């Protein structure tokens, strides 16, 4: 980015609404009020150039979360752009619907039919896989099991919803782990630069080439199986630990483009420590791409979890995830196809929506990042 050569910082009206003012005293080298130069913008006008949206001056400042900054129009603009993207809105609606269903569904089913995800009926005549919407006599219509039952007579809908809880949880928590690692790593490398950056990024390059799924499989096979809950925690850690690489690259790139701006110089001149500059000043400004990429990491982690569960290494009974449900379904695919179709379709729909939402967010927040 070209440096602004004029000694005067733009007048206050350009950014009177930005929360930068709320950040308290910070000094640039000239003792002028803080803040990088901002081109003037009229109201809610969409940025004519995408690079003005993120990575330059008019992003949020340190230490504030999106909710507490009504004045920042980056997020409002992004929101408007997101709403204009029909596929992204579709994705958002479906994702919200599935999250709500997964949270409130199981108790509702329990209240209505008495079935939980692991309820095996006492009556041996009922421990059988019934097609969707049929009563146990196999012919007449009934709402008891809208998606049928599995081979032990357990309600498929309850199992799919319960499986969704686990699948989504693995996706979100593992993504969170990957954000923690990736952001810390990438921001450190980007800010320190030079030899440190070279070495750190070379390590990332090296890790990229490793077929890490093999190591995850070994890890799960050898350390898992002590208790189902432990296995799930192992999944969080293992999947998070291997999916931070791209995040680190993205954050590094952002930080590199931000670190020579005045507000960083000001912080440094003010004697702020390096870790604090990285995490309070640089990372918050790189948040847009992080959110976008995190949205895209969730489906990929969920897919990996399903893959591992499908191999019998992931989530284990009595817990179920969409992957392990699909794996159970495949055993009986010729006779009871609904056992595979429903969990499979639910999962595909969720991933589909998450991917569209992620794509839409990327286009809204950071149109520069278009790839894949």
């Amino acid at each position, binding site marked *: 980015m070209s440096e602004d050569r004029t000694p005067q910082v733009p007048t206050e009206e350009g950014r009177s609404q930005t929360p930068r003012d709320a950040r308290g005293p910070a000094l640039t080298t000239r003792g002028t009020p803080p803040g990088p130069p901002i081109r003037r913008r009229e109201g809610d006008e969409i940025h004519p150039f995408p690079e003005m949206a993120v990575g330059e001056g008019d992003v949020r400042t340190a230490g504030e979360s999106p909710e507490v900054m009504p004045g920042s129009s980056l997020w409002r603009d992004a929101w408007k752009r997101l709403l204009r993207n029909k596929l992204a809105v579709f994705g958002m609606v479906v994702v919200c619907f599935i999250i709500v269903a997964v949270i409130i569904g199981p108790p509702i089913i329990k209240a209505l039919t008495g079935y939980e995800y692991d309820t095996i009926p006492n009556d041996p005549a009922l421990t059988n896989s019934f097609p969707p919407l049929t009563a146990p006599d196999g012919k007449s219509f009934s709402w008891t099991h809208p998606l049928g039952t599995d081979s032990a007579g357990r309600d498929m809908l309850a199992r799919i919803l319960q499986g969704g809880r686990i699948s989504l949880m693995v996706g979100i928590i593992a993504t969170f782990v990957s954000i923690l690692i990736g952001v810390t790593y990438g921001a450190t490398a980007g800010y320190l630069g030079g030899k440190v950056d070279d070495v750190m990024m070379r390590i990332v390059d090296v890790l990229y080439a490793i077929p890490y799924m093999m190591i995850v499989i*070994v*890890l799960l096979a050898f350390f898992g199986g002590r208790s189902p809950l432990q296995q799930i925690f192992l999944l969080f850690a293992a999947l998070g630990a291997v999916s931070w690489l791209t995040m680190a690259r993205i954050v590094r790139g952002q930080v590199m483009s931000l670190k020579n701006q005045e507000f960083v110089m000001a912080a440094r001149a003010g004697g702020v420590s390096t870790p604090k500059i990285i995490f309070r000043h640089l990372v918050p400004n790189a948040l847009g791409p992080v959110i976008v990429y995190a949205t895209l990491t969730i489906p990929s982690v969920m897919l990996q979890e399903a893959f591992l569960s499908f191999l019998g290494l992931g989530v284990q009974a009595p817990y179920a995830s969409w992957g392990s449900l699909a794996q159970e379904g495949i055993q009986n695919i010729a006779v009871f196809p609904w056992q595979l179709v429903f969990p499979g379709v639910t999962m595909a729909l969720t*991933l589909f929506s998450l991917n569209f939402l992620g794509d839409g967010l990327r286009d809204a927040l950071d149109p520069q990042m278009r790839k894949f």
Partner: protein
Amino acid sequence: MLSFIIRRLLVTVPMVLVVVSLTWGLIRLAPGNFYTGEKKLPAAVEKNIRAKYCLDCPWYQQYGRVMKSILTLDFGHSLRYENETINEILMRTLPVSALLGLLAYLLALAVGVTFGTLAALKPNSKLDYASMAVAMLGISLPNFVLGPLLVLVFSLSLYWLPPARWAGFPSWNLVLPVITLSAVYMAYIARLTRSGMLEVLRSDYIRTARAKGLTEKEVVVRHALRGGLLPVVSFTGPALAFLITGTVVVERIFAMPGLGNYFINANLNRDEPLIIGIVAFISIAVLIFNLLVDIAYGFIDPRIRY
């Protein structure tokens, strides 16, 4: 160029050692081993086995044995499979997996590049939206759902294609596994091609090509594709790593005697030498392949200098 290759090879060797050491360390740290299974061995037998495989040796001797086996590329015997050495297992299973992977990737390239290019030529057309939606579906539909669904439709309902089993090459048995495996790559390649081509088609040299009167076909095939496919080329590296996990699933669904199936079984059996052998072998293969991709990249894109 040569110095680049040498430098990369110098990095590659320690990387293989790191991957294998990591795997070995994980196996070592885990409680229990192959011999602590359900079946209790007589004490004397177990003692002999322990002596033979050096299981009571200090860790550095065991580690030394593993490293030696990698450097000499002789992985010894599996703990589970009787009549074959690990090298023989690798040689028998590798062609199956490699064939599946190769066919799937070629199919993905053909379909993905075609639709990606068509979509890029008419952005925001119906074809563009349709192919990108299908591509997104391909990315979102796990292959272990897609595979059985294909079996359900084409084998169990229509009786067109055999549902599983390996029957050599060529055979109809390969159709469903290859399609299942290639779906994800098709999708990724189509999306990569589209975005790459969109960028290239806007560039000056394409305008020049059009201005000097080339036909649209010549412009696209001879000029644009070369630049537009660069992202696809660089995707080939990560794709290989993906392909390995993909083949594991596909081999399991379609009962193919490939490397991935053996890898999972080896893990479930705690067959340490076989795990180490496969991990070492695949790491070497992936790293060499990545190197080849990087070299190829330099040839395709003359702007890249090593």
